């Protein structure tokens, strides 16, 4: 593909935007990055994603695409090198299923466990454990969710490999203990060490500070509600 214009609107920390960074880098696609501030979104971003007004947005030759999982499939269909999805329909269906499961079940449960305390946190953790068990099962006999190579599911779940340890540091909780989830624990290490992934992590100290504030704010809000 010759003269292409590929732009990615992201924030420095968005795990959803990071998925797109990984996909583009794995495929060796050249792109321009536009960093956005959550508190002050550019008119350009809002113009490209008026419905959700969020990152990531990929703009390819002037055409915007929003929603990270939708963008990932677009990237896979447009740039064929290093495929993220199998060409077998059932394998594709399974990959889409697990990517969706990650976003709809795993992420909310872990987020709830991170932003709450006491009984609510315990319940969220319990739900998270149930969901993580399915992921552990899915990794049986595999190094990565995509098999030997990173695939869509690895990218969709990749936020675990970074943010879980940040959340664990802040809360003192063990979200993914090695004894309970040996395969998932191993996957997180393997995934995080892949060069393209490793070089793209946002600065850890900044992440710890940011999520620490988020947790504090969430707990304060809960305390207000209880008054």
């Amino acid at each position, binding site marked *: 593909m010759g003269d292409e214009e590929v732009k990615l609107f992201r924030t420095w920390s968005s795990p959803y935007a990071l998925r797109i960074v990984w996909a583009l880098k794995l495929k060796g696609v050249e792109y321009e990055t536009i960093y956005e501030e959550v508190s002050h979104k550019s008119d350009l971003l809002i113009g490209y994603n008026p419905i959700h007004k969020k990152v990531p947005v990929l703009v390819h030759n002037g055409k915007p695409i929003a929603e990270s999982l*939708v963008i990932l*499939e*677009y990237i896979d269909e447009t740039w064929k090198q290093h495929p993220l999805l199998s060409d077998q329909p059932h394998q594709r269906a399974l990959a889409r299923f697990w990517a969706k499961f990650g976003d709809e079940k795993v992420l909310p449960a872990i987020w709830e466990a991170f932003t709450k305390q006491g009984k609510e946190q315990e319940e969220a953790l319990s739900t998270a454990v149930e969901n993580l068990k399915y992921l552990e099962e899915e990794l049986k006999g595999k190094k990565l969710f995509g098999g030997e190579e990173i695939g869509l599911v690895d990218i969709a779940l990749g936020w675990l490999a970074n943010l879980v340890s940040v959340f664990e540091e802040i809360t003192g909780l063990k979200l993914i203990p090695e004894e309970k989830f040996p395969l998932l624990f191993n996957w997180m290490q393997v995934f995080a060490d892949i060069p393209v992934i490793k070089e793209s992590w946002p600065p850890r100290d900044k992440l710890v500070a940011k999520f620490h504030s988020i947790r504090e704010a969430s707990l304060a809000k809960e305390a207000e509600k209880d008054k």
Partner: protein
Amino acid sequence: MAESDLALIGAWQSPFVLRARVALNIKNLQYVFHEETFGNKSELLLKSNPVHKKIPVLLHSGKSICESLIIVEYIDEVWSSSGHAILPSDPYGRAIARFWAAYIDEKFFPSLRSIAVVQDEAGKKAAVEQVITGISLLEKAFGESSKGKPFFGGDHIGYLDIAFGGMLGWIKVTETIAGLKLIDPETTPQLAQWAEKFIHDPAVSGVFPDIGTLTEYSKVVIAKLRGSAGAK
């Protein structure tokens, strides 16, 4: 295609099951339909979709495929030379269709459901606003997507027609129960015309629920959902 090779676990009332059935019809596929009873999940369902325990589930040569939109894509990919293509061929068209389908599932449908279930006035008002906003966005998206043709997918029913069309039964029921006009020739002329075409399309008409029956059924469901929601 041997009939026993292909089966769908579903229920007549489900908008998500309807999506799968329309896709199967577009591809002229014969299949066994396992009808579930509301409130009593079968062994087959629990075994085929242990993670979510939800319908629809497509069973094909011993494999289960779950999640309605994933099922639609699967059907389109496996039977790519039957009937007509469900997803557009160009990646950008596919991305737009998938974007709106995600919007329908994540924003539109939960609000639609809320209108009937939520009991506090503020919550209900918010849900109604979200639904009306969603419909006006989809009216605009229809114009852009159809380019003057009868469906989101152009000449034939496509992915977004299926994603949104599946909801039409419940949209009509909500209009009746809540006294609203959601899809209406005056405010949403394109969608009003599209809805009629969709419902009467040969791939849809045989499986689209009877609105009277669905309305009666919805009263039972709403009472049940309010019962469990009111406990909080």
